[in-house]
Every structure is written in structure tokens, then in C-alpha cells.
């Protein structure tokens, strides 16, 4: 009788390698993305953005971000994704988009995060970023939800996938718990970021709104109040739900993704042998 031996844990070659050029692009775009999210905190009192054109600033960044997202995705995928990686990306994005269309969406319950976090975990940082962005984009197309929030969501979900791919390489029960805790943190952080982009629009009252020209500490305090009163009730359930999903489905999904990666044989490098010289040429 033959015994099936567990293959030793080995790192899968990242499907979307983050080379130096792509890493620099990602860093620059992420920096601009962070500014687009959190410009109310970075702006110094004085410039036109802060005084006369404060109402236009969110739209300026909403127009700028799609270009940044396009640049970073183009740069990441230009390293030569083969057909298997593209098909896998498309199918995982389809799973995420279908979950997004079907998911209740109420109380922040977002099963899409499971796909992005676990996909990024198994297939690496670069793939995680592209998977997050493409999943959100495809989900918006399926549900007809393309709006000014879309580029912000794409960046935030991209970061969620990226950092899932950057988690330490552990296996077994530790891995599931690491990913589950990461899901909790990512769910809450995603909500805090997505609130931030909407905050300048949300003129709910002078105590919780962005005040142009005010000091950083005062604005941060008002954002804290805004966050506590309006969205913490959404973000904590999202994080907890993601964590529970990872604990429940994580081991099976991780095994399924690794099995797919083995079957696709991403590590196999084809070698081409030139044909023997034809005498009639």
C-alpha cells in the first residue's frame, strides 16, 4: 500500500511578481492614494484647496484616482501574466463579484473579503492587489454600481489583498488564525478608510464634519466622533464576520486554492528546444 506523503510546505512563486519598477509605482500610487483618502488631515491651512476650493478637492481626487489605479494595475500586470494566472484572476474575481451581488451588504457583512484575503494570501502580494481591485471593479459592473466611490474601494481592497500576501509564512492552525485576525483588522481598517473619503461630503453638523482651515487635531477629533457615531457599527460586524468566515471556511478554501495552483503548475517553466536544422531551408 502506498502512503500519501504530505508535500513539504514551500512558497509558491508569486503569480504577479512585484519587481523594482512595479514596487516603486505601487509605492508612489499608494502614497497619492493615501493623500486622496486623507487629504483633510494633510492639508496645511492656507492653500486654495483648503479655503476657496475645499468643495472641489474630493472631486479632484475622485477624478485622479482612476488614472492612478489604471497605472498601478497596468504596471503590476505588465510583467507577463500567463493565461493561467489571468484565468485564475478572472474566476476568483467572479466569485468575489457574485458574492458581492448576492451578499446582504447590510451591517457591513461583506463575504467578498474572504476571497480577496485568501487569494492574496496564497498567490502573493502583487496578485492580491490586482485581485482586490479587479474584484471590486467587476462587482461594480455586475451590480451597476460604478460611482465616485469605486476607485477608492479599488485601492482599499487592493491594499487588503496586498497585505494579506505579505503576512508571515506559517502553516497549519497558526496560518488560519493569522489570516483570521488579519481579516478582522482589515475589515475594520477598510471601513475607516472608506469613511474617510466620504467624510468631506458628510455635512451632518458642525461637530462631526470636516472644517476647512481648522487644525489637524481638531479635525481628527471631529473625524473620531463621526466615525464612532456613524460607522463603527458597520465596521466591527464586517471585521468579525470576515474573521468567522476565515475560521469556518479558511482551511478548506486555502487547500482548494493551493490544489488549483499545483494543478496549474505555475512553477513549471517551459523550455524550448530549437528544431534540428532543416536541410531544405
Amino acid at each position: 500500500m502506498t502512503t500519501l506523503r504530505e508535500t513539504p510546505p514551500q512558497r509558491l512563486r508569486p503569480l504577479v511578481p512585484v519587481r523594482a519598477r512595479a514596487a516603486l509605482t505601487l509605492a508612489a500610487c499608494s502614497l497619492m492614494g493615501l493623500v486622496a483618502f486623507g487629504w483633510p488631515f494633510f492639508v496645511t491651512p492656507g492653500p486654495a484647496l483648503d479655503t476657496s476650493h475645499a468643495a472641489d478637492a474630493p472631486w479632484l481626487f475622485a477624478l485622479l484616482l482612476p488614472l492612478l489605479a489604471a497605472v498601478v494595475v497596468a504596471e503590476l500586470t505588465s510583467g507577463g501574466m500567463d493565461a493561467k494566472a489571468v484565468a485564475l484572476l478572472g474566476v476568483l474575481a467572479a466569485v468575489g463579484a457574485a458574492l458581492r451581488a448576492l451578499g446582504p451588504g447590510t451591517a457591513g457583512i461583506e463575504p467578498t473579503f474572504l476571497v480577496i484575503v485568501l487569494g492574496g494570501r496564497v498567490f502573493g502580494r502583487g496578485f492580491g492587489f490586482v485581485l482586490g481591485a479587479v474584484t471590486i471593479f467587476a462587482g461594480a459592473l455586475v451590480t451597476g454600481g460604478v460611482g465616485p466611490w469605486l476607485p477608492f474601494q479599488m485601492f482599499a481592497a487592493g491594499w487588503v489583498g496586498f497585505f494579506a500576501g505579505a503576512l508571515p509564512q506559517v502553516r497549519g492552525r497558526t496560518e488560519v488564525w493569522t489570516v483570521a485576525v488579519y481579516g478582522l483588522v482589515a475589515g475594520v481598517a477598510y471601513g475607516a478608510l472608506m469613511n474617510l473619503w466620504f467624510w468631506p461630503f458628510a455635512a451632518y453638523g458642525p461637530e462631526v464634519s470636516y472644517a476647512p482651515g481648522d487644525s489637524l487635531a481638531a479635525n481628527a477629533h471631529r473625524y473620531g466622533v463621526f466615525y464612532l457615531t456613524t460607522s463603527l457599527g458597520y465596521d466591527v460586524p464586517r471585521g468579525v464576520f470576515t474573521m468567522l468566515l476565515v475560521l469556518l471556511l479558511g482551511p478548506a478554501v486555502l487547500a482548494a486554492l493551493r490544489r488549483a495552483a499545483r494543478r496549474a503548475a505555475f512553477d513549471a517553466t517551459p523550455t524550448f528546444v530549437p528544431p534540428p536544422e532543416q536541410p531544405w531551408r
Partner: protein
Amino acid sequence: MRAAASLTLPRALHPGAWWLWALGLAAAASRTTNPVLLVLIIAVTGFVVTARRTDDPWAGAFSAFLKLSLVLIAIRVVLQALLSRSSQGVTVLFTLPEVPLPSWLAGVKLGGAVTAEAVLTATYAGLQLATILCCVGAANALASARRLLATVPGALYEAGVACVVALSFAPQLVTDARRIRQAHRLRGHSPRRLAGLRRTAMPVLEGALDRSIELAAAMDARGYGRTGNASPSSRRITTALVAGGLLSMCVGGYGLLDGSGAQLRGLPTLLLGTVLAGGGLAVGGRRTQRTRYRPDPWALPEWLVAGSGLSAAVALFATAATTPAVLTVPSPLALPAVPVAAVLGILVGLLPAVVAPPVPHRVGAVASRQPRTAQVSA
């Protein structure tokens, strides 16, 4: 006259034209808080959507966006009423019981007197956001997502293909899930348990992953991944353009945020950066060469539709430059002004209801809702 230039020949309009029209109206809405103009813009988008809507699944997006914007206005009004202070007006509508809050919430007040001024200010400010959302919703309902994906630049080829795969597979997955749940029910498993979720989710995922490998084989067989003739110099130009664009975007963004000195240089540097990065995308697109199957034409109807949206934006921007006072409501309780030029400019936005080609009647409308996986690899 070319057939594409005909205004009456039924065909799908280029999705870019619909987006330009909608973005023009949205830009117009961003210039004003005058409720007359904002409601007019919502009416224009609603009329055009009703006139030129298809029977695609995303055509219902407009009503979803309309509901979302009504909810946004409602949330804003309720929160404003709860948090408002009497400093925002003197016309008290009614008084709510006041809730004492801990001191670290520094001056937040829950309840108390609700003034008409506070409620109207919240409604007008919410209406502007709602109008912009309605414009975006109209574009979502009118522009075909699939045709939009066909126009992605070559540099995003891989991501675009992945999106098309996702769009084709997502309905298939829903069918799979239904089939598997039915099989479980036939075997006598109760479908409403937590373990039931796992029993449904895992076969769907495994099936999808298996299909991705088959799809990859099909794509390989059809010559996916053929690279274009990008020379090393064009690759170097792409790198330089993207790097320069990002650098000047960062510098421009810093200039915008930092008030010391370089204020004016912020926006032009940022614009230069976007142009450079866009050029980098265009040049980088040359590395993939592909042919288009039945490309969407850009003919007279597209120009008219895009132009009508831009005319609304131009009218509002011109009014904002000459008589900015009519675009705002001086005090919440005053009657808003009705600027004629702006109203006419917005009404031009109605043109697509007539000049956009009628929606083609699809014979196999039901059959085409089935997922078409074959076209993925095309």
C-alpha cells in the same frame, strides 16, 4: 451617409458617449446648490434613461441610484436635525428631547430645537450629492459594461480580460450554487445550517477553479498572450513617462496641500503628471497587439450625445464665472433664483432622448442572458 451616422438606425451607442454626457451633467451639478437647477438635472437624466434604456440586467441601476440618493438626503436631514444647534436659524419647527452626552464628545448636542433653516440647508447640500449620484446612475444604466470593457487601453489588457472572465462567470456561479443546493435538498440535507454554507460554497469554488484551468487551456490554444512588437526603446519611453508622471503628480499634490509659496504650481504640475502618466499607459499599450471584433463606431450620434452633456457643464461654468449669486440660495428660507442660461444649458442635456439611436430590439433577449463563456477567450 454612413449607417453609423444615422440618428434613427437602432444600435447601441458607444458607452464612452453616455459617460461623457453623464459626467458633463455631474460637473454642472457640482457648480450649484440651487434646488431648481438640481431637480431639473435629475429630471433630465431620468427622462433620457426612460427613453433609451435597454433590457440589460444593469439597466435598473438608475432607480437603485435614485433610491440611494433619497436615502442619503434623508440621513443627512435626520442627522442635521438631531445634531443641529439653534445658531443655524431661528424658525423652530419642533423641539426634540435633549440627550446628555459625555464631556469628551466636546460640544456635540443630541436633540433639542430643530430649525427649518438647518433642515433646508441639509436638504439642499444633500440634493447636490444626490444629483451627481443620479447622473452616475444614468451612465450605469445606459452604458453597457461589456462594451466599456472592450475599450480599455492595451496596457490594461490582462486586467481587462480578467474582468470579462469575471463578468461571464459570475452568473454561472449563481446557477452552480442553486444546482448544488438542490442536490443537497434531494439528499435530505437541511439547507439552512452553517455547515450547509460550507457544503455549498466549497463545491462551487472547486468547480470554478477547475473551470479556470480549462479556460486557461482554451485561451492558450487560441493564442492568448501574443506580445506585440514593443521595442526596448518604447519600453524605456513607457518607464520614463510613467515615472515622470507619478513624480510630478506627487510634487503637484504636495503643492496643493502645502500652502507655502508654490500654491499656483500645484494644479498645473498635477495636470502635467496626469498627462504624462496617461501617455505612459498609451505607449505601454503597444506591447499587446490585438484586433477588435465589431468595434463600436464613434459617429454623429456619439458627438451629439457627448456634446449635449458638455453644453450643460459649459452653461453652468459660464454662469458661475459671470453671476455666481444665482447658483446658490442666499438664505435657506428664500426662494431660489431661476437663471435662464443655466436652465437652457441643462435642457440641452435632454437631446440624447431624441438623437441617440433607438435601442435595438433583441430577438433572443432571454437566450442572451445565459452566460456566454465562449466569448471570453475570443
